[in-house]
């Protein structure tokens, strides 16, 4: 029997908060994407933990679909970053202000 699920949930909460903080603080679009991946992983860890606590395979199936969506999201997002870099020669989020009001 593994540890109590609360430990895993607490760790996932900490990782999610670190990812959210990085998303708010960092300026490089690529690193902001990595912070989104951190948050997704924290959510995956929560799903797997609940799957074990409830003995229900639905949580693991959801993690499977989250992985697929994360892969698709990263591919499209990085394609956008490359296209933006071609036009603006930068990957800093502050420089993409052409649509500001």
């Amino acid at each position: 029997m593994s540890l109590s699920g609360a430990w895993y949930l607490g760790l996932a909460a900490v990782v999610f908060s670190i990812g959210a903080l990085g998303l708010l603080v960092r300026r490089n679009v690529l690193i902001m994407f990595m912070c989104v991946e951190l948050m997704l992983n924290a959510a995956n860890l929560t799903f797997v933990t609940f799957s074990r606590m409830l003995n229900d395979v639905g949580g693991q199936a959801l993690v499977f679909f989250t992985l697929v969506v994360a892969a698709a999201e990263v591919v499209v997002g990085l394609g956008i970053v490359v296209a933006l870099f071609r036009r603006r020669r930068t990957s800093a989020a502050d420089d993409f202000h052409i649509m500001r009001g």
Partner: protein
Amino acid sequence: MLATASTVDALTFAIAAAVILAGAIGVVVARNPVHCALSLVMTLFGVAVLFVEQQANFLAAVQVIVYAGAIVVLFLFVIMFLGVDTRERVEEEPLRGQRPLAVGLMVLGLAGLLLMGFGAHWSVGARSVAGPARGQSGGDVAALGRSVFTTYLFAFEITSALLVIAVVGAVVLARRPGGALAPETDPEAEPTDAQPDAYSPADDAEAEEVAP
């Protein structure tokens, strides 16, 4: 529960948690984007260890293959493509007071999450229709496959459509306007009409990464 858990489990969790937290903090604080990506790999491996610890063996394998093997490689590919020397200007703040506000929000949100995680009994509620995770013949791989290909079959098929759309989107976005041999466009120039058969090596790399 903690008293009944074996020492090995507690030790595994402690080491994996330390690796995960070190990697997560590294992603946020590292100046070099390559170091950020390598810290992300550390975190992903730690999460895979915790998946194994919770009897989700198939997801641990997929985590290592798809995340560490494909997504982080794609990140590194784009970092190298854009140039690693694009340091960000950390000292200037376009929005004054945004960073302290972000730290305050993080502490507040973390406190709320931890209160929910430790202070409430969240593992209650109705069963899902997917079936139990343990006790089935064939282990967790068979249980997961059975639920994905029966209960969640429609979502699985939609997933394949999503991947195709992502491949097409990546190819369209990464395509260089004006064909492969055209010079780099001026940063301020308007995009020209793209040729439908335009080809650039980046397209293949983008498209292959989504395959797993």
